[in-house]
């Protein structure tokens, strides 16, 4: 027993020693993503994108003559760990701003801690428009809200695809998919369309045969399918829907913005539409996007895995721009400068914050997959956006 106690004491000493701080002259930004656990497939690419951006900025001379340093911890998809990591960023690493996460639970585990220290937190991937009001003044989105993209999808379906009836399949396991589906339904029925059947599944379900059989039994068949789902599930769903012989247009949100969709569904991905930030295509995208994809491929040996990669990348440029315009790495001045961001070009569209609004004004790109290729079908700003 004595040995046990001494062993425990030794562990404690190692721990206390390892808690020591570190100093450096760089401008430190706190980066929090879940590199392991259930959220890792979304957060990993964001982290890659952010690191790439920091590397480019530093290679071009940094910001205000200093290098950007991304201080990162693994959130492990666990709120308690994230809380501790955020506290470390504030206290030990003394970062001037924080960013990260693609899920509102995770954002809410970190952002209040940043706010307490009067540091901004920018979420690169959590698109819930309700989020910033929970942490007033200090929580910003670098992407559009779900209500905006859902409204754009509904208007495009109604006006351009001439869809009058829709089948709705929603992932009940994620805030993102729930909100997206709800906002779509709200705007689509407001325009006069009808949702003929609403079905659900849970994140991670792999067999959709029962839902699909129900869908096939619908008479008359709906004009379109709106499937609200995340990047890990959508390929599987499209594949199984098409395998069952259903060819109707499938519509969705930026969760579809992943090469996996076409890799998994193959030919089945044709006649799929989705709303996203910009056309992520090596050949057809804008020059910034093409440059980003090339740089990403050179760095990580793979194309950007999903839309979150570009969002992580833009978030670092957004912060760098704010620091530059503030002409200071003071957290308070960074926050003020961030709020006045105007027409900052990025690979996910240009970013403008209206006074008092922590959600950027960004156009919505509507992507269409035809003949095994991505096409930019339209770039729209929805006429009317459902209230958050």
């Amino acid at each position, binding site marked *: 027993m004595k040995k046990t106690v001494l062993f425990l004491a030794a562990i404690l000493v190692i721990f206390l020693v390892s808690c020591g701080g570190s100093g450096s002259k760089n401008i430190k930004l706190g980066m929090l993503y879940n*590199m392991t656990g259930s959220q890792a497939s979304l957060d990993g690419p964001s982290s890659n994108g952010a690191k790439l951006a920091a590397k480019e900025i530093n290679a071009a001379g940094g910001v205000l003559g200093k290098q950007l340093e991304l201080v990162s911890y693994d959130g492990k998809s666990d709120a308690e760990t994230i809380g501790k990591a955020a506290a470390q960023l504030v206290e030990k690493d003394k970062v001037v701003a924080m960013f990260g996460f693609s899920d509102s639970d995770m954002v809410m585990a970190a952002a209040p801690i940043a706010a307490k220290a009067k540091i901004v937190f920018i979420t690169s991937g959590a698109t819930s428009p309700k989020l910033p009001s929970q942490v007033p003044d200090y929580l910003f989105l670098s992407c559009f809200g779900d209500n905006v993209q859902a409204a754009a999808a509904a208007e495009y379906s109604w006006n351009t695809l001439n869809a009058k009836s829709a089948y709705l399949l929603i992932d009940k396991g994620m805030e993102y998919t729930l909100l997206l589906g709800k906002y779509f339904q709200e705007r689509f029925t407001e325009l006069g369309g009808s949702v003929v059947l609403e079905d659900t599944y849970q994140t991670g379900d*792999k067999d959709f045969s*029962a839902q699909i059989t129900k869908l096939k039994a619908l008479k008359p068949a709906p004009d379109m399918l709106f499937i609200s789902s995340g*990047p890990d599930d959508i*390929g599987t769903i499209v594949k*199984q829907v098409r395998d069952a012989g259903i060819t109707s247009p499938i519509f969705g949100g930026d969760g579809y913005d992943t090469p*996996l969709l076409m*890799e998994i569904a193959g030919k089945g991905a044709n006649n799929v539409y989705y709303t996203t930030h910009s056309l992520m295509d090596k050949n057809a995208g804008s020059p910034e996007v093409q440059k980003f994809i090339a740089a990403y491929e050179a760095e990580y040996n793979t194309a950007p895995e999903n839309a979150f990669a570009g969002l992580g990348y833009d978030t670092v440029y957004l912060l760098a721009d704010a620091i530059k315009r503030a002409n200071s790495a003071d957290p308070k001045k960074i926050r003020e400068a961030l709020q006045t961001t105007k027409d900052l070009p990025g690979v996910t569209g240009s970013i403008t914050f209206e006074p008092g609004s922590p959600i950027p004004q960004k156009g919505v790109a509507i992507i269409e997959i035809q003949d095994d290729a991505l096409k930019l079908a339209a770039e729209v700003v929805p006429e009317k956006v459902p209230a958050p």
Partner: protein
Amino acid sequence: MSAGEYISQQIINAISIGSLYALMAIGLSMVFGILRLINFAHGDLIMVGSYTTVLLLSGGIPFVWASLAGIAASTIMGLLMERLAYRPIRGAPDVAMLLTSFAVTIFLENLAIILFKATSRAFPVPPVLNTVVSFGNLQIASLNIISILLTIILLILLTLFVTKTETGISMRAASQDLVAARLMGINVNRVIAAAFAIGSFMAGVVGILWSAKVGKIDPLMGFNPVLKAFVASVIGGLGSIPSAVLGGYVLGALEILLQGLLPANVVPFRDALVFLILILLLLFRPNGILGSTEKEKI
């Protein structure tokens, strides 16, 4: 689609997903029968097999060989698991064994994240597994037909193995009474290793079929299937092969039935109902729907 066609289509769905659950449940159930170990890491064997297959496919190896190698990798990993993690703790409390299997899961999943990244990868499926066969208005994916046929073949082989070979008979003896089996001169280590090898082989086969159905793989892909297989083996009555198979098909039917029949606002509670049925079975028929009412049989 007429009502008859609708029902036939759902029956086919149930049989094809049930086949996969059955194959998974066999491995869990065999190991539980002998060691009383609920091996949560069984699901990760699916992941190991699928990743091996995908890596070989991207290296240009033809699908048949790559998938055979994947199945072999699952089998080897199952044996390694037994040798390195479970054999040294044999005889530890049930809980410690259960937790060890959790630890093995965490180990394999995080190792996979470190080695292969957390993002999903596509599982390239050859056209033969990817076509739709039409019978009138009924459309059946070729993959489903192949899954069902393969399951039947494997079940026949397994039945022959446990009834005709010495190792197979020893295995059944060990699952009746491990101590007595040892006293009768049965090499317990060999029997347990054989149980792991067979279970892992089945998991490898499921890995290929499952990944082909889903179209993609990721490091955490084993968790949901193992949970389902686990329910299946309890429904059947933990510990025996025929009941694990039955449990797999019953679970498949139950899931499809509930998803297809329940009103839309109740459908999300499907899994809760499945687990409620599981608990009720444990209370009233602890040896499964097939099992005798005799207590603690295994």
